């Protein structure tokens, strides 16, 4: 509903600033941005909650000490806030990439046929279609295993990168 070209919510908003919005889900160029906007909107609350908890757990005395040393607001943010919420950032990046590479429900609801020219068919959606529409279970299972290995490799690389830049406070 939100992405409908004639009366959808996004195009109503764009019309307010004088832009004639596209027909999001029918256009090969805009179907992926539409899904991205939707996924961001959906995941924002969760990420924000985690960041809120992380920001509240940064000790006040670090900011006080930095202010006494003459650090500007930007320097405090750069050298205290970002390092202190780094574990949460890492967690969110890892879980978001895993979740994003397994995106299915949004696609299956918004574009049940894979979108224009298959432009919104994700891996999991394609596996699902092969397995339960075409009943090619073996093919689908093989793709699932490869997807699992791929996600594993990406996560492994991320853990490696994180270990190299590990921040520690004494």
């Amino acid at each position: 509903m939100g992405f409908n070209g004639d009366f959808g919510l996004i195009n109503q908003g764009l019309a307010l600033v004088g832009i004639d919005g596209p027909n999001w889900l029918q256009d090969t160029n805009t179907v992926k941005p539409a899904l991205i906007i939707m996924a961001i909107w959906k995941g924002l609350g969760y990420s924000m909650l985690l960041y809120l908890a992380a920001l509240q757990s940064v000790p006040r005395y670090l900011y006080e000490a930095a202010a006494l040393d003459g650090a500007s607001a930007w320097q405090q943010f750069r050298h205290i806030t970002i390092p202190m919420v780094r574990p949460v950032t890492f967690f969110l990046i890892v879980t978001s990439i895993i979740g994003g590479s397994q995106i299915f429900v949004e696609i299956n609801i918004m574009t049940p046929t894979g979108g224009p020219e298959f432009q919104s068919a994700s891996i999991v959606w394609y596996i699902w279609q092969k397995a339960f529409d075409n009943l090619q279970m073996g093919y689908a299972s093989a793709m699932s295993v490869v997807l699992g290995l791929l996600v594993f490799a990406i996560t492994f690389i991320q853990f490696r990168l994180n270990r190299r830049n590990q921040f520690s406070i004494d």
Partner: protein
Amino acid sequence: MSAQHVITTPPLEPTQELPDGSGGAGKSASRPTGGRPRSTKETLRLGNVITTLVLSVGAIVMIAPLAWTFSTSLKTKDGVFALPPQWIPDPFVWENYARIWTAGPLLSGIQNSLIVACSVTIVGSLTSALAAFAFAKMRMPFKNVLFLGLLSGS
């Protein structure tokens, strides 16, 4: 912010950077000594206004789809596809909320959801806690690889 200004006057270099970065350089230059706290206040107020504006736009963007869903729930079938779109439904009907209870088996749906949700929460928390303890405290071969495999499968 103001406490910082008062305290950091002795070490000169960092404070010199501060007004430049925050955009209040012109004001503090025009009032070299006496006007300093006031200019900080003005910058703060302007910053508050801008922050509030940006956050308001974000809040509207986040809430709009929910408001639109609510508005749609009060429309008739024609009203849903009306052009131009109606934010306040013209034939304003509560009928859809009455249909909730008659058109489909909503109660048994809620029941099913509750059963699944409670079981997942209880069993999931218990088993996750046990597994987390194993990963946190015990020694085993290939611990990291096992953990990564578990994570990428979730």
